């Protein structure tokens, strides 16, 4: 009876520092895991390694210059980020965007969603442990989209193509044909991923039931995008508060009720199919016309006011809170990062699971660190 106190083993949890340089942290994210054997007991996330003060910098620049910073804030979905920003400026400056510009914006934004989700598929495949195959598969199709963007904007990553009021210039004449070509490739890519991962036994075993978060918790953490829709909350800004022409095309909000990593993967896969549908309908309805409003001031100034614009970026709600006190630059610009809010829930989702699971839970949130840190 006395034995146990005399020779009891003293065990100590291991503190495992993951990141900021680690293959699975998708950038410079760092977390300190408290590990008991293979089980994660606690996670302390550290962010801010990529903080560039983009919000402050935007205060010193005029509205046109700010577009470039939005690209760099969300570099995997730069079009979506630009869209939020220019919509905020348009709302304050009361600019009417011509129809053609709206349709083109919608096409670009959805294509960018596709490329971003493809990126997720590739990176997630590596997180789960498939050696390279999904990554290169993703790269192939993403390349097609990026090539298209390059033809349009002249840049492969930092497009700076949207402008308050419309677009920087009109798309090339072969735009519709090129889009359709790209869509064919992407549709094949989606089918490839479906075949490679969705029914893969080990993939299913690794992702189902992992990183569960309930609908109530997801709402409480302010999650958005596929991460919250996988928990059964049909929260999609495109449907709830339609902008652009989302009301004029037919598409579905993809939700799953399981709330685990697999559901998040399926949500993204489904969303890619929906995006293809949206782009196709947009291409059908694209008509020639102006791409900028007729009375566009040479120097864009906004009256005092404030607006909080939200759009649905691939990772969730990308909000831009713009305060103007007159003049040609923002008085205060706040970027509401979907990744930041989603990342808050990481601890909730991964404590009590295995180290390997914590990695794929992080992967399933699909963070972009430059958006988290801004």
């Amino acid at each position: 009876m006395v034995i146990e106190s005399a020779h009891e083993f003293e065990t100590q949890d291991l503190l495992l520092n993951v990141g900021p340089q680690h293959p699975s942290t998708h950038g410079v994210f760092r977390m300190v895991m408290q590990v008991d054997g293979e089980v994660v007991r606690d996670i302390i996330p550290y962010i801010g390694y990529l903080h560039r003060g983009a919000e402050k910098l935007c205060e010193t620049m005029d509205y046109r210059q700010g577009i470039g910073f939005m690209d760099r804030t969300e570099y995997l979905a730069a079009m979506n980020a630009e869209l939020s920003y220019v919509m905020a400026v348009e709302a304050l400056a009361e600019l009417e965007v011509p129809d053609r510009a709206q349709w083109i914006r919608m096409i670009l934004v959805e294509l960018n969603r596709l490329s971003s989700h493809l990126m997720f598929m590739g990176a997630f495949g590596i997180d789960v442990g498939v050696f390279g195959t999904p990554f290169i598969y993703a790269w192939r199709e993403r390349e097609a989209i990026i090539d298209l963007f390059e033809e349009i904007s002249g840049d492969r990553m930092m497009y700076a193509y949207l402008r308050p009021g419309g677009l920087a210039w009109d798309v090339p004449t072969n735009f519709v044909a090129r889009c359709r070509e790209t869509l064919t490739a992407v549709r094949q890519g989606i089918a490839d991923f479906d075949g490679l991962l969705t029914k893969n036994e080990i993939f299913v075993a690794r992702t189902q039931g992992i990183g569960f978060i309930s609908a109530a918790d997801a709402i409480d953490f302010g999650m958005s995008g596929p991460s919250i829709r996988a928990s059964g909350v049909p929260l999609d800004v495109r449907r709830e508060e339609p902008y652009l022409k989302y009301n004029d095309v037919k598409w579905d909000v993809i939700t799953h009720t399981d709330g685990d990593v697999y559901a998040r993967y399926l949500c993204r896969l489904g969303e890619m199919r929906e995006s293809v549908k949206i782009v196709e309908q947009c291409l059908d309805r694209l008509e020639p016309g102006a791409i900028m409003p007729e009375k566009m001031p040479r120097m864009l100034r906004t009256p005092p006011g404030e607006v909080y614009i939200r759009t649905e970026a691939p990772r969730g709600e990308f909000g831009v809170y713009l305060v103007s006190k007159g003049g040609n630059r923002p008085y205060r610009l706040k970027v509401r990062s979907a990744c930041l809010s989603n990342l808050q829930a990481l601890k909730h989702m991964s404590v009590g699971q295995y180290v390997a699971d914590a990695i794929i839970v992080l992967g399933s949130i699909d963070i972009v660190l430059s958006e988290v840190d801004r």
Partner: protein
Amino acid sequence: MPTGLLGLNPWLDGVVRLLLIVGLMTVVAMGLIYIERKVLGRFHARIGPQRTGPFGLLQSVADALKLIGKEDLRPRNADPWTFEFGPYMVFIPIFLGFVVQPFMAGFQVRVLELGLLYFVAVSSVSIVGWVMAGWGSDNRYAMIGGMRAAAQAISYELPFVLSLLAVSMLTGTLNINEIVMSQAGVPNIVWQPLAFIIFFIAALAELNRPPFDIPVGESEVVGGPFVEYSGIRWSMFFLGEYASLFIMSILISALFLGGYEWPFGTQLGVGFQLLLTVVKASVLIFLIIWVRASVPRLRIDQLMGYAWKILLPLSLAQILINGFVLVYDLPKIVLTVAGIGGVFALVWLTERAIRRPRSARASAIALSEAAS
């Protein structure tokens, strides 16, 4: 078998044989690295190495030269002896396993009466090297990797050995050459399909190949025990990995696919036997690379559960069936039927194990909802 390769005295003969092993294994490992990169490249929808020499054939040579040229770093806090000897402890047992590999009739380093036992004994020693490397590096990733490697090797040793036992029960010997000879008519895979699959899976785990590459899991423990190694020491791990891949595929082809004997190995002579060995081993290696390109990594608990809850009972059942067939002298077709049944059981159990966590959670949620 009498000594005297080239009619030398036993000591010199031993040295020559050792040099042959080391030379051959190095070349084989380099060849395998090239093949793996090329094949994986094709699976990835890319080309693979192509700039170094014709078809990129010199890629491995370039890699090897680069690795030799790199600085051999040792972290300050690492335990010098454990750290520096870890690679050798991984490397040497694998080469020792080469001794009993049957390539052609009469062409092997040594024919041992207890060849299988010898192989199992020496090959499991290399795990000591993994743990040494993991512990000696003074790195937490390395330590987790080393512990994972130990756990995995110990668990998979059992189904590995038991499925070997099933084969040697059937053939009545532990001598690998005799096992090969006994397959002149029909290869063992026909009689022991279940044992073959269990052995293949366990071999993947022993080799730390995907989906069992948990100790080195790139996305979790960043290379596990190797994380602090560089240059020549790191390349020794790599060499060991590919050497054991080669040895294991030769062994599988010898034990289950008829080795150099089936079909018509004896009739068509030594040259054909070599061809048979090479073709069978290549097919197995290709299969292993294919698996690597298409499946994710298992989690440590799934890996252990799979060994202890599914593979071990099934391999025990295989031995039991073999025993019944041998004791009561039942027709051999019973083995085939039972084996195929066992394969279906394996697939069904695996499938069930995969779906379980989610259904368990769903029912738990349903229960809690019903209660509230």
